[in-house]
């Protein structure tokens, strides 16, 4: 069995599962945020109206709640949602509610790894499509809607069809100025935005062994954009070192069997990879940066669970150091802890000195909700994960998805720019 099959078998109390089996799986961890949370509460309320009474939820210690999409409260409706969420977590004794303005908070997926809320071998579900991110820790990690999350909160389990696994072997040493974002964009361009529908995308190979956790998380984060049920990387020494800095909780890692079967096996020679972008209006509309060299843009955005982890900010800042941006540039770190560390390392000063605006952690700008919404015909180069029509604002705005290094390079010139051309 693959790692995904083994985790799902263990959580379904079965000795073996094969792709296509439908299992009701025990859940180890569950997450909801200020968009899925109010939906969950509505499901509970509707059942209470029908006379059902929920004195408690399945296990408040396995639940965590974030405020990330519309925070700091974007308007009155957002504020009411956050108040309702706070009342609900208090009522059910959920201790892990990460509130903005009250210490650590940030984007749900970022907190999942920053706070080591999910551990290798676990089954984790979240009320957000990019829950796939956390699979980089070696967990089965999948996104669900709010009815399914409500069901998990009542019953501690949910159904899954055991997915087939597509294996991506990443070979060779990652060249300078290439990031995991370039790798995953290239892969999505090849397999298509429905190329991994209902399947697992697993990453392995010598490149993975050299990638730090922040980079691995970019790969699994964007498996969602290929339609994957989950993305996963087998836990190793890098995973363990990352987690040991954050938690003492023991965990029980799972790795795949040597005779595991994959539906497809792809091999990528990463040392030959070029800086890559996804053009509007699809993450699969991929092109080498060089082919778009000179495309004029209006705004550069460094933010989101995909592109505002500490390593993302570090590498973007390295390029911007001592220089001035030529277009509007916005930086929103993905979590408070990352923001603090970025200040400590001088990264935030680098951004500010370059002329960028640096703001609080939020999903806001990535999903066109608030805090940097694009206007009609505005063109943005962004470290985020999605560029469908209207994703970051007006339906006629355009987003190019790129790595933090490419976004930083483009911020300096006002055009889509290959970072290698700036330094040579």
């Amino acid at each position: 069995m693959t790692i995904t099959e083994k985790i799902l078998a263990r959580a379904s109390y079965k000795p073996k599962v094969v792709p296509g089996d439908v299992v009701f799986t025990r859940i180890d961890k569950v997450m909801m945020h200020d968009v899925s949370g109010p939906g969950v509460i509505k499901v509970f309320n509707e059942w209470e109206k029908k006379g059902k009474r929920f004195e408690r939820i399945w296990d408040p210690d396995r639940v965590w709640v974030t405020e990330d999409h519309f925070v700091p409260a974007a308007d009155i409706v957002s504020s009411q949602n956050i108040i309702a969420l706070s009342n609900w977590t208090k009522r059910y004794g959920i201790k892990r509610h990460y509130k903005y303005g009250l210490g650590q908070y940030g984007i749900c997926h970022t907190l999942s790894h920053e706070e080591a809320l999910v551990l290798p071998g676990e089954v984790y579900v979240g009320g957000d499509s990019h829950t796939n991110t956390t699979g980089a820790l070696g967990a089965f990690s999948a996104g669900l809607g709010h009815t399914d999350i409500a069901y998990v909160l009542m019953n501690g389990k949910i159904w899954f069809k055991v997915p087939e696994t597509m294996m991506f072997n990443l070979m060779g040493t990652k060249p300078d100025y290439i990031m995991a974002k370039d790798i995953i964009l290239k892969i999505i361009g090849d397999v298509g935005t429905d190329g991994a529908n209902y399947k697992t995308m697993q990453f392995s190979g010598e490149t993975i062994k050299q990638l730090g956790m922040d980079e691995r998380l970019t790969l699994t984060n964007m498996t969602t954009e290929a339609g994957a049920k989950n993305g996963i990387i087998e836990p190793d020494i890098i995973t363990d070192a990352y987690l040991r800095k954050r938690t003492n909780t023991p965990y029980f890692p799972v790795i795949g069997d040597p005779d595991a079967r994959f539906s497809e096996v792809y091999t990528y020679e990463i040392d030959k990879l070029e800086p890559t972008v996804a053009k509007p209006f699809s993450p699969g509309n991929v092109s080498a940066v060089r082919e778009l060299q000179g495309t004029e843009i209006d705004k550069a955005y460094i933010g989101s669970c995909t592109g505002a982890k500490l390593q993302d900010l570090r590498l973007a800042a390295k390029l911007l150091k001592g220089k001035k941006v030529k277009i509007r540039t916005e930086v929103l770190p993905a979590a408070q802890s990352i923001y603090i560390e970025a200040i400590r390392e001088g990264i935030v000063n680098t951004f500010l000195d370059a002329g960028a605006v640096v703001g609080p952690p939020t999903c806001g700008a990535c999903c066109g909700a608030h805090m940097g919404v694009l206007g009609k015909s505005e063109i943005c180069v962004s470290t985020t994960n999605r560029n469908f029509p209207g994703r970051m604002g007006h339906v006629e705005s355009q987003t190019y998805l790129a790595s933090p290094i490419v976004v930083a390079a483009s911020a300096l010139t006002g055009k889509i720019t290959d970072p290698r051309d700036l330094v040579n």
Partner: protein
Amino acid sequence: MMTVMRGIVHKYKRANIDTDVIIPGPYLKIHDHKELAKHAMEGLDPQFPFKVAQGDFLVTGSNFGCGSSREHAPIALSHAGIKAILSPSFARIFYRNAVDGGYLLPIEVEEATVDKISDKDEVEIDIKQNKINNLTRNESYTMKPFPELIAKIVEAGGLMNYKV
């Protein structure tokens, strides 16, 4: 859940109609289902909520509902009136949200079937027989049967009503 449904088709041929188009990000803070329905498909066709009557169907290209996990997407479509969507394929979270929430039926059909059905055709969907009858054109097509568990959840009217 009725096993035979009859309604008018609204056809959007495009593949990869994503959740940002079905219900744009700024509306995610809204949880009133009727209010969400007013913005269904706003990113593609702002007139959509005015064109649709209760019990109508959507016929569309592959990978419908890709993108975010927002349950707002099937909710907005369902409350606008759409009770079934015919497509060659669906994105996974949209599919399970539609079924588990009991909002509407995601029905997989062949590409050729999508081509044969036109906008405004009157269609009858029979989920017991796995048949689609095009009353306007006097044609019949097959639908891919629901997998066993999905059929049971559909019959129960959503996951919450389903007894494991």
